[in-house]
C-alpha cells in the first residue's frame, strides 16, 4: 500500500499500463520531456522511450485525429488535451469521428482511445484553463465520460478506460490533483465504467456530485452530520453512461436530493439528473430536488473564482431548504 495523491495515482496507473500493455502509448502536449504541466506523466519518457511517450505539436485536432488513426490501426493511445478549454479544436474529431467509428464501420473498427482532459476551476489560472463543459461530451452518443474524485477511483477508472474498446473521455479535476490522497495497493482494482459510488451512506438527504465539487460536498456532509442529519453522498464518477440505478435508488431511499456541479447551470448534467429523478422517483420525493451549480457566465479570473464555484455555504443553504420542506 502506498499513499498517493490523485495526480500520483494517475501517474502510477499510466506507468503500469505502459509496462504491462505493449500497445499503450501516451500522446499530448508537454507530456514527454516536461512530464506534463501538472507532472502527471512525469518520468514516463525516461522509462518507456520516445516511441511510447510522445510530445505532440500544439494541435488538439491533430492529437485526436492522429490518435483515432493509431487506435483504429490497433494501438491504444492515451491522449491528453491539456485543459478542457483547449479541447474545442478537437471537438469535431471527437464528436464527428471518434464517437462514431464503431457505428460507422458497423462494429468492424472501434477506437480504444482514452482522452485525458484536466478540467475545472479554482486554480487561479488565466482564461481557458478553468472551465467545466463536460455536459457537451456526455451528450455525445458514442463517448463515455468518467470523472474520478479520489485516487482509488482515478486509478481504477483509468485502467478500465485504457482496456475499454471504445473511446473514453477521462476528466481529471485539477483542483484535486494534490488535494486528496488515499492508501492504494500497487495493483489497484479496476472500477467499472458507468458506475457511481455511494461514498457515504445516510437516510435523510442525498448529495449527488462528481469531480472537484466532491471536496465541498464531503465538507457539507460533515457539517450536516454534525447537526444531526444523516446525509448520503453519491459520487457519480461516470457522466456517460450515468449510473441511474444507483442514484435513483439513493433518492428513493432518502426522498430528498441536492445536485452539485461547478459547470454552468443551464443545461448542465444536473438538469439531466433532476429530470430522471422526477421521472422515476416522483412518488418518493418529500421535497423538490435542488441544484447548486456554477453560474451561467464565463468562469471568472482568480479574484472572483470563489464567487463562481459552489461553496460549502451554498450547498448547506440548498440542503437546509430541501430538509425543511
Amino acid at each position, binding site marked *: 500500500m502506498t499513499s498517493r495523491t490523485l*495526480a500520483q495515482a494517475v501517474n502510477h496507473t499510466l506507468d503500469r499500463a505502459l509496462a504491462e500493455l505493449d500497445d499503450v502509448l501516451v500522446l499530448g502536449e508537454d507530456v514527454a520531456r516536461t512530464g506534463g504541466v501538472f507532472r502527471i506523466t*512525469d518520468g514516463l519518457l525516461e522509462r518507456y522511450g520516445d516511441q511510447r511517450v510522445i510530445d505532440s505539436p500544439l494541435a488538439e485536432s491533430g492529437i485526436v485525429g492522429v490518435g483515432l488513426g493509431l487506435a483504429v490501426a490497433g494501438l491504444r493511445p492515451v491522449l491528453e488535451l491539456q485543459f478542457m478549454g483547449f479541447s474545442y479544436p478537437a471537438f469535431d474529431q471527437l464528436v464527428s469521428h471518434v464517437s462514431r467509428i464503431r457505428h460507422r464501420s458497423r462494429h468492424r473498427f472501434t477506437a480504444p482511445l482514452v482522452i485525458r482532459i484536466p478540467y475545472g476551476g479554482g486554480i487561479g*489560472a488565466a482564461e481557458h484553463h478553468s472551465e467545466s463543459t463536460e455536459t457537451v461530451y456526455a451528450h455525445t452518443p458514442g463517448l463515455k465520460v468518467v470523472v474520478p474524485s479520489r485516487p482509488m477511483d482515478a486509478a481504477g477508472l483509468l485502467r478500465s478506460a485504457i482496456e475499454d474498446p471504445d473511446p473514453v473521455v477521462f476528466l481529471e479535476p485539477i483542483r484535486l490533483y494534490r*488535494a486528496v490522497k488515499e492508501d492504494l495497493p500497487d495493483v489497484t482494482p479496476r472500477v467499472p465504467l458507468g458506475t457511481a459510488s455511494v461514498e457515504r451512506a445516510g437516510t435523510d438527504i442525498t448529495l449527488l456530485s462528481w469531480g472537484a465539487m466532491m471536496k465541498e460536498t464531503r465538507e457539507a456532509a460533515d457539517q450536516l452530520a454534525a447537526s444531526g442529519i444523516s446525509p448520503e453522498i453519491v459520487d457519480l464518477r461516470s457522466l456517460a453512461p450515468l449510473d441511474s440505478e444507483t442514484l435513483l435508488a439513493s433518492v428513493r431511499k432518502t426522498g430528498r436530493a441536492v445536485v452539485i456541479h461547478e459547470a454552468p447551470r443551464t443545461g448542465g448534467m444536473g438538469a439531466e439528473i433532476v429530470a430522471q429523478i422526477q421521472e422515476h422517483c416522483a412518488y418518493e420525493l418529500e421535497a423538490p430536488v435542488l441544484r447548486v451549480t456554477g453560474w451561467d457566465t464565463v468562469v471568472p479570473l482568480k479574484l472572483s473564482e470563489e464567487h463562481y464555484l459552489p461553496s460549502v455555504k451554498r450547498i448547506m443553504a440548498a440542503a437546509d431548504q430541501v430538509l425543511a420542506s
Partner: protein
Amino acid sequence: MTAHEFCLPDIGEGLVEAEIVRWLVPVGGQVTADESVVEVETAKAVTDIPSPFAGTVIHHGAAEGEVVQVGQTLVVVGEPGDTWPPADSDGDTTRTGADAAPIVGTLAETAQELPPVPEQPAPSSDRPRALPLVRKLAKELGVDLTRVTGTGAHDRITRQDVEAAAAATNEAPATTDNTAERHSPEPVAHVPATKPAGVPAAEERRPLSRLRRTIAANMVRSWTEIPQVTAFDEVDASRLLALRASLQKRHETPVPLDALVVATVIPALRAVPVFNASLDGDDLVVYGRHDIGVAVDTPDGVIVTVIRDAGAKGVLELAAEIHRLGAAARSRNLKPTDATGQTFTVSNIGAAGGTFGTPIVPPGTVGILSVGRAKEQPVVRDGQIGIAPVMPLSLSYDHRVADGAVGRRLLAQLVQNLTDPALILA
C-alpha cells in the same frame, strides 16, 4: 527583511533548465525593475532575463557555466545587508519532478487523507409512495401516509386513498372527536411496542385493523391529555325497567334501555352544565344543545354513534334513532355527522354483562357514563330488606373541569333520575 527571490521561470516551449552564460549585475550591484540581470542559454537560444524587482542583488542562484532548473532560485534582489538564504528558512525550497510547482495555476498542496469508502449498502425503501400533491393533501387533512394502503399502480397512494382515509378516521372512532368545527385533529405520539422478556419463540403477528388503530390512537390521546377520575354509584332500577316494559307494551316496539338512560341523562346535564362541554385551552365551551354519544359494540370494535339534539327528542324518537344508528354502525355505514361531535357519552356495558368500569373520557369531552347490568340484589327500603334489580353506574370525567363535589352532584342527579324516572317530566 525584504529580499525577493526570483526563480527561473518557465519561458515555455518545454524548456526545463538554463545555463548561466554571464551575470550582468554582480552580487551587491544595483538593478532596476525590468533591467536585464543575467544572460542564459537554453536549448533554443541565448537570452537575457530581466529582474522583476528593483534593489540590490543579494544572491546569484548559480555561477556562470552552471545550470539552473526551472523553479530553482535564479537571483535574489533586496536591500543592502539582507542575507540569503534568510536566517529563519530551512534551506533549499526548490521542488522537482512530480511535485514541482505547476506551470499554470496554483494547486492546493496539502493533501486531505480520504477515509476508505464503506461497502456499498443494498438500497432499500419502504417509505410511502405518493405524489407531492398527494403528500400535501395528506398533510392538510392530517392523514399519516404510513398508515394508508395505496391503491394506485405499484402501491402508490392516490388522492382518493388520502380522502378516504381522512373520512374513515372521522367516521368510526370509538372515543374520538374529529369534527373540524370543534376540534382540530392532533397527531398522536407513536408508542413503540416493548417485547417482554421470555416471549415464546412461536408467535403470530396480527396487524391492527384501521378501526383498531383509530381507537388506539384516540385512547392514547385521551390517556395522555385528560386527568380523569371515575366515580361509582348504584341505582335501584325497578321503576326504570317497569317503565320500559310499559312503553314497549303500549307502543308494541322494543325500547332499548339506552333510550331511557339518555332521556334521564339530559335533565342531569342541564342541572350540571359543565359536563355538557368541551375544554378548549383555557376556555370551557359549554354547549346549549345535547348531542349524546351512544357506544355501539360491533365485531370490529366499539363505535360511538351520536344522537343529535337528544334533548329535543322524546323517548320513542330516541329509541328509533338508537336503532338506526346501531344498524348503521354494525354495517359500517355511518355518516360523519352520526359519528362525531358528541358533547357527552353514554356506554351500556351491561348489555355485555359488565358491572362497574372505568370508561375513558373521549378526547374533546368532559364526561362519560357507563351503565352496567342490573342484577337482583338485596336492598333496603323504608327500613325493610327487599329484592331489587340494582344497576351499577360509573362516571368518568375530566378533573381539570370538575372536582369531586361536582362529579358527585351529577352522579346524584343521575341516580335520582334513574331511580325515579318520573322526575324527568319536570
